[in-house]
């Protein structure tokens, strides 16, 4: 019973070990120079010209949320498509109400103007 989880334990140890080594070794061995170039966010990139924490339109939030909802619904369709051949008509009929609900939700957000940028 418990030995079933041994591979999992090994994986956790490996992952943790990799992290410790990847970050630990350069810290121990690497040379360190604390000059201005090295302390920039991007050593050989564009020089930052303003603060990264700035205000951006709240509309992105709406778009992200709508995306998330439909994204998850589409993810739900993949396993459904995979087992459709075995479940046959049962799964097809069961999916119809799901789609109706989805379409109603989509119409609602469209007509309510959630997709308009301005």
């Amino acid at each position, binding site marked *: 019973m418990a030995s079933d989880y041994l591979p999992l334990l090994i994986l956790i140890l490996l992952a943790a070990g990799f992290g410790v080594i990847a970050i630990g070794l350069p810290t121990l061995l690497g040379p360190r120079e604390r000059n201005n170039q090295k302390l920039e966010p991007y050593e050989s990139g564009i020089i930052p010209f303003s603060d990264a924490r700035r205000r951006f339109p709240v509309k992105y939030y709406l778009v992200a949320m709508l995306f998330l909802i439909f994204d998850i619904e589409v993810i739900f369709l993949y396993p459904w498509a995979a087992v459709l051949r075995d479940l046959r*008509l*049962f799964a097809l009929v069961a999916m119809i109400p799901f789609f109706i609900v989805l379409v109603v939700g989509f*119409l609602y957000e469209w007509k309510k103007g959630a997709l308009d940028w301005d």
Partner: protein
Amino acid sequence: MDTALLFDNAVVLLPELVLAVGVMVLMMVDIGRRGQNGSQLLAGLSVAILLLGIGASVMIWGRAPVEYLDGAISDGFALSVRLVILIAGVLGVLLSRNWFPAIERQGGAFYSLHLLAVIGMMLMGTATNLIVLFIALEIFSLALYILSGFYRENARSIEAAMKYFLLGAFASTFFVYGCALLYGAGGSSKFTQIHETLATGGGNPSLVLPGIALLLVGFGFKVSLVPFHMWTPDVYQGAPTPVTAFMSVGTKAAAFAGFFRLMMTALPSFHDQWAMPLAILAVLTMTVGNLTALRQSSVKRMLAYSGIAHAGNILIALVAGTAAASSAAAFYLFAYAFMNIGAFTVTIALERQYGNENDVEQSRLAGAAERFPVLAAAMAIFMLSLSGIPPLAGFFGKFLVFKAAVEAGWAWLVVIGVLNSAVSAYYYLRIVVAMYFQQPEQAGDEKEQPFVPASRSSVFVVVVSVLAVVVIGLQPGLWADLLRGLGQ
């Protein structure tokens, strides 16, 4: 799998289906309406949908219980809880109409969410499967998070929604972890299957108690048991009062229904182990709720703490864990729906008198009986019923629960419950005393304010609630026969 399985016994979910179709119709009507003035139509449509739902429940009332796809059952208990929730839903819609400006602009969203919350709550009472139980919990919780923040002009409402959402999401994670452990213990997500596996010595019994403990956090949060009650006063106070009225009753009925069914059909063989912790929680909940309610100055916060104390009373029925106790709990919730919504409705009417704040301070109630004799009389009836004074509905709720608990051998718990009722009488009666026997402090100012008539729908709700509280109190046997418990 056979396609007929989808339609066999689908009548179990008829009320939920009626409401689900209704919500979609409501949303389509909302996007079809022109201009700003269709929100009365939406309110009427919501009430009609909910009444259809009640009709559908009555239609399947009294049939032999059948199960749909191993996930939902139509026994008497499910139907009783459904009735309570649908009634709370109708009264909630009637109160919300005209209440706040946002409802004119976003009536469609408001009423759809309201009905979705009702669907989730009803589903919770019929669920016989951990997965259905969790989904039902999430459906009504998510809807309520948004509804409690619907009064967007009011900072407290936003705060309430934020607090409820963050803490509620946290409680849900406990809940789903508990579900996972119970699934691990019983090897099935179906309640009766879990019971069979564990009762015949199979499964993994060592996971049961951790599972119950985690589920208890989730349920305890929803019904606001101490020590998971911290959100209750803030959310009840901040949320729009019509929403508070609806959710204080609906959430309690739904979460207790799910809790009862899970504990009594999946884990009855562990009753000896979970009864005592729940009894201790019941004592804590009643005592802390009542003692804290004594010190509240806001009417809504007082009602919130009173709701916590009532949750403790209902928990006594679960501790007893008999069929009679579960039907007593259904009766309690039925009576509680009317008296609590009634008390909140009077609060709404008083809010209008005192300048549309989202709350009423108790100090302003002084001398209210002289200015608003009808409201004061109704409030007095609700307060007396909440404190459990015969012959009103609240008394018989408590009586049946306590009786079932004594029969199951929990006399000491009942003694504490009765003592707590005595304490609660103090803060309920204080409101009556303030309204009838005290003089307002600045009589001059109060008199100058014009009288604002209550909206017709809230007058209707008050009348219905008063009638119900009195009729249930005068004819308790009739309703006690009608409302069934588990396994009856």
